[in-house]
């Protein structure tokens, strides 16, 4: 089967500082692709480069076989490529409901916003309780749920999710992963960036380990040997 998203030898970074060196990976439709790796490996930069928020300097990115390299973020969003950034990237001075409404901003999502809002409230009842509250007053876990709900309002075909468990209490992390498993079961294509390898591997179809801006390991989810992964994960120098 043709992959939905292909990353082919991508080099990217911020101005003179290069972060990604020759990153290649593929994402199959309906699968959950997990990208793990230590801090600073370039996982978030990769997602931002896919979305056009960080310029791609080399290589190519293809969605449905067509190049989307350095395409404008909002055009990709209209095509169903959605990124759920970490919880701190909500709109703090807007209400919870207005945040979610922004998720329905892409033209094709506007018509069904009411039904989608109900779907999100169903998934995250806490957001419904807090719908009128300013998003900046939410707890870390609630903010993460808001970021996820907002992304789902965009009716994604592929959802790039950046560190959804970062800095959250274990009980909240449980809930986040329960919802990720549910979205996966519903057939959503997910690209999950996580530092919490144990949890992430449980829902992974395909796993990539990134190290210093490169892919150090690529393996089907069921075949990943956690000990070997962790050995590579922490052996920064050895991997290079």
């Amino acid at each position, binding site marked *: 089967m043709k992959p939905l998203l292909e990353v082919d030898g991508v080099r990217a970074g911020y101005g003179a500082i290069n972060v990604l060196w020759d990153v290649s990976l593929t994402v199959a439709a309906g699968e959950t692709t997990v990208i793990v790796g230590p801090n600073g490996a370039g996982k978030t930069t990769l997602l931002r480069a896919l979305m056009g928020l960080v310029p791609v300097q080399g290589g190519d990115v293809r969605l449905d076989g067509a190049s989307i390299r350095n395409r404008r973020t*909002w055009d990709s*969003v209209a095509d169903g490529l959605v990124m759920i950034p970490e919880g701190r*990237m909500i709109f703090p*001075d807007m209400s919870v409901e*207005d945040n979610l409404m*922004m998720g329905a*901003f892409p033209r094709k999502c506007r018509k069904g916003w009411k039904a989608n809002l109900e779907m999100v409230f169903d998934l995250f009842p806490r957001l419904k309780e807090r719908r009128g509250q300013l998003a900046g007053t939410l707890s870390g876990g609630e903010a993460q749920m808001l970021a996820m709900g*907002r992304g789902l309002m965009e009716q994604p075909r592929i959802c790039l999710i950046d560190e959804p468990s970062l800095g959250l209490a274990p009980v909240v992390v449980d809930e986040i992963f329960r919802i990720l498993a549910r979205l996966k079961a519903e057939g959503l294509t997910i690209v999950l960036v996580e530092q919490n390898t144990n949890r992430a591997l449980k829902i992974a179809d395909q796993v990539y380990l990134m190290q210093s801006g490169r892919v150090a390991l690529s393996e089907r989810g069921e075949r990943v040997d956690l000990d070997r992964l962790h050995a590579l994960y922490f052996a920064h120098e050895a991997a290079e």
Partner: protein
Amino acid sequence: MLELTLQALFSGLLAGGYYATVAVGLALVFGTMRVINLAHGELVLLAAYIAYAGESRYGLNPVLCIPFALVVVCASAAIVYALLARIEQDREMNSLILTFGLGVILTNLILMTWAADIHSTTNAWMLDSVVLADTLFAMRSEVVFFVAGLALMAAVHLWLSRSWQGRAVRALSSNRNAAKLMGVDPSRTEVLSFLVAGALSTFAGIAIYTGKTIYPALGHVMTVKAFIITVLAGMGSIPGVLIGAIMIGVIESFTVTYAAASLQELAGMVLFLVVLFVAPSGLFGGKKALPR
């Protein structure tokens, strides 16, 4: 004495109405583009002079000049935007220089075209006095434009809080990258905020021409006033801007009534400094974004 105080309060309130429309335009543009448009007051003044030209040359009612002024001012606002969008480096500093320069050019174009004389409307209906509760006097135009200004502010408030584009304006000023991830095209939204600012400026310009007097240097004065009001309000909310605008209007009118008209601008500045000392993030909280 009491009567005089009440009258000063009343006049200040009326002035606050159109000050607020000028300030909201400035705040909208600042919110979406992080740019302080120092030519903003000149756009207001341009609308005022178009009304003057229409009235003095063709005998038009100033209100009927609004459509034409709207087109010219919005086009000018779009030009300011197009030039700003070309700045690639150090937008904060360079945008100040650029818009200040544009303001100087506009002021001098106005000076060249209409000379340095002071003008105000000659429309008898506008100049007619209105008496409230037997004691409070105002010109009819002041009352009309105050009420219309409030309606306009309410409309902008609704637009920002209820419409897709209005929410996009707020989202863009809240978190630029997150807004892009929601499918917002920043340049379209920025143009839109400039056009709305242009429409508000047009309204304010006609209000000034019919209720006050105009002269070429007024543009600069209006920019500074709008800036003071937005900072005073903490750029948090439309009601906040309205209150800030009325405060400035009232303090100016008290200065004119009890001290001297020449101290009017100074009074606003003093209030501004005092507020910054007491509440550095503005009177209505530290929400750095923009009217809501």
